């Protein structure tokens, strides 16, 4: 079955990321497919390239990157993202900011990518803040 997942919570502010990631890994174990993981509201902060994980605690960014390495698309709402400081190099240049902040391999996308992923998928599941 094909799933689209949405992450609404910021790192450390909720279990949104942990729930979404563990669920995604279980999906892949059972040979389901993930159409897209969409980061919305404060969930866009998951895509920041700059956090330093406290020693001995989980490194969320590294875990997202590991999930992506299994072929999962990590898509960040561009409207929610840029106003919260999540900037790709392209957006950095457009708004003339000094540094970009979007981690590889996240991409900034429009809300249309949420709706089309919902349309493509058999299931849509939200992990709220």
């Amino acid at each position, binding site marked *: 079955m094909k799933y689209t997942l949405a992450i609404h919570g910021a790192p450390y502010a909720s279990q949104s990321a942990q729930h979404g990631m563990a669920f995604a890994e279980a999906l892949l174990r*059972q040979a389901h497919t993930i159409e897209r993981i969409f980061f919305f509201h404060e969930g866009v902060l998951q895509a920041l390239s700059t956090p330093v994980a406290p020693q001995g605690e989980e490194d969320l960014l590294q875990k997202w990157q590991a999930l992506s390495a299994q072929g999962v698309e990590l898509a960040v709402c561009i409207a929610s993202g840029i106003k919260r400081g999540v900037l790709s190099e392209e957006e950095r240049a457009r708004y003339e900011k000094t540094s970009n902040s979007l981690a590889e391999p996240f991409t900034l996308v429009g809300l249309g990518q949420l709706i089309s992923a919902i349309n493509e998928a058999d299931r849509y599941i939200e992990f*709220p803040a």
Partner: protein
Amino acid sequence: MSLHLVFNSAGYAACRQRKLSDDPIILLGDGVYCANRLDEDNIHVLEIDARVRGVSLEQCKASTINYDTFVALTALHSPIVSWAE
């Protein structure tokens, strides 16, 4: 049939008013604190979230599940509604 994901007690209050009585519920995150207060059938508790919080499920009527069962339940139901207030 819908599946309801309940993330906290206020979410449970909003959910129970708006679900069919047969619809299953999964308690996860802070929703697991509701586990021992509920008398309904068809309630599942994400075991790892209860263990993390020190919530004992020994006296609990609900079934305990892991992520694999969580996935299996989502494959059987639609829509999947998240409740967090």
